[in-house]
């Protein structure tokens, strides 16, 4: 089995998009490109979320995971969602392999329990050793401002978890809306995520939340990265559709 790179887009937001392309469509597009889109909705205590449906749908069509959390639990959640999403992607891949061995519409559950252990071992092994690229897309609209220090903590926590793995990691950091543009790049691809507090924009235009364009930009960023490395890129794992 060829070891590839897992590509994720991690969207951290607190509400509904209101500008540009439909984010659910953009998430579907990202998935076609072999990325998964995971969404974390950050709430204030006592806050109810109107964007719930959208958050769920973005993750669903992006082949990823979504989770709503209060700001306080953000750290634990970000690393957990990222790792779960990795596992899910790898499982989808293994699932396909299994089907080619066992025949169609066979699930892992169709294996006797004693045989499942080996499948889990392979999933664990890949989750630990595969390279990972995460493009982090942060909603910095006015309502998110006071949550940004928590987001920052959560991202540092994420990097602690990912760097404890054996595989390599790369991160890129984007914010939306940007100061002048809809989406702004805060950090280009880098293996180390640190000093992020210095780069979060201090002030942003209130009112707009261009989630769709942000996702589109994320796809472009991945495309550029890939073409930069040449056409003979290492294989990536595609999410299976079931």
């Amino acid at each position, binding site marked *: 089995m060829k070891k590839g790179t897992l590509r994720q887009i991690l969207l951290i937001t607190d509400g509904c998009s209101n500008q540009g392309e439909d984010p659910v469509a953009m998430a579907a597009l990202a998935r076609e490109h072999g990325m998964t889109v995971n969404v974390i909705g950050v709430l204030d205590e006592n806050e109810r979320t109107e964007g719930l449906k959208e958050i769920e749908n973005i993750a669903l069509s992006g082949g990823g995971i*979504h989770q709503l959390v209060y700001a306080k639990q953000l750290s634990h959640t970000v690393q957990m969602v990222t790792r779960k999403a990795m596992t899910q992607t790898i499982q989808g891949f293994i699932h396909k392999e299994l089907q080619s061995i066992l025949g169609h519409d066979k699930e892992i*559950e169709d294996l006797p329990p004693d045989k499942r252990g080996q499948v889990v071992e392979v999933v664990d092994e890949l989750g630990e050793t595969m390279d990972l690229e995460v493009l982090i897309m942060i909603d910095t609209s006015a309502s998110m401002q006071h949550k940004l220090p928590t987001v920052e903590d959560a991202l540092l926590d994420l990097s602690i*978890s990912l760097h404890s*793995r054996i595989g390599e990691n790369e991160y890129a950091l984007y914010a939306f809306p940007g100061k002048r543009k809809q989406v702004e790049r805060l950090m280009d691809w880098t293996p180390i995520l640190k000093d992020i507090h210095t780069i979060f924009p201090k002030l942003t235009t209130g009112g707009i939340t261009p989630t769709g364009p942000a996702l589109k930009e994320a796809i472009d960023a991945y495309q550029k990265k890939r073409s930069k490395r040449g056409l003979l890129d290492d294989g990536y794992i595609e999410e299976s559709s079931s």
Partner: protein
Amino acid sequence: MTGTSKNQVADVPRGTTISGKWNKQTYQIMKKLGSGALGTVYLADSVKGRVALKIGTDSMSITSEVNVLKQLSMVQGTVLGPFFYEIDDWERSGKKFPFYVMEYIDGEPLFTFINRRGKEWIGILMLQLLRDLSALHREGWVFGDLKPDNLLVEGSPPTVRWLDVGGTTPMGRSVKEFTEFFDRGYWGLGNRVAEPSYDLFSVAMIVLNAGYPKRFDRPKKDAEHYLMNKIESSQLLKEYKPILRKALLGKYGYASEMRQELFALLQGEKTNVRKNKVNSSHSRVAARQTRPKAKKKRTGWVETVLLVAFLLFFYTLYLVGHIF
């Protein structure tokens, strides 16, 4: 929480018979023991006697725990975690629920026990825990999600047992399941690579938790200083400071090192305590052992102190399984 929303297992009522699809064993549900992110654990009756049954929804994570339990059950001579019996699927109204069966640990939560029996038990139970961790590490595993919820005190003599091997990780890999308060990564005092010092940090935080039952959050910065202050301002924790400090800062490479130092500290302390209050002895053992003595002619207090200290020493050795 996943995109493909998983159906939760509804509580399984008392008296329900669970039968395994593959192995055809049956289990009678007696009561719910607890639940967590990955499933619910029930006490059940079976031909094996009373067992604990963990029923989940995600067969991958159930299988993953079983992988660990199987490995631990193979370790000869020591009991590391609940003994594993079998894994199977339960079909209930058309849906399949993976479950596994393990030894039922009839114990009391760590802090409930300590509150009932006295704070002096903390040191003793930690000695036991460190001995088990030492064996676990020797086998190439790190416990990972070590916390009071995952520790039970069982039987007589009281023995600490651990449950929930969901966080147990092969040495050198990354710990995936942890609880913030007990995780050195959260405190900015280390990474999440599975190595002995990861668990030893958690052991120290369990002791801190005994001093601060409500726990506390991390500070904005300088967690090290903050934790040291917490230790110093607690009557209970102060005496353990040198050991807690080293564990929190990752200075112990092995559980056995920490165990030895804790052992030495407890010995010193016990002898001192005895010297100061021979008469108001509150230790059950000491009381029992000195009573017959009192009937005799007055024995010199030095002898009494020595005897009590001696017995206590052996009792401690016994409790932590050093001898017998």
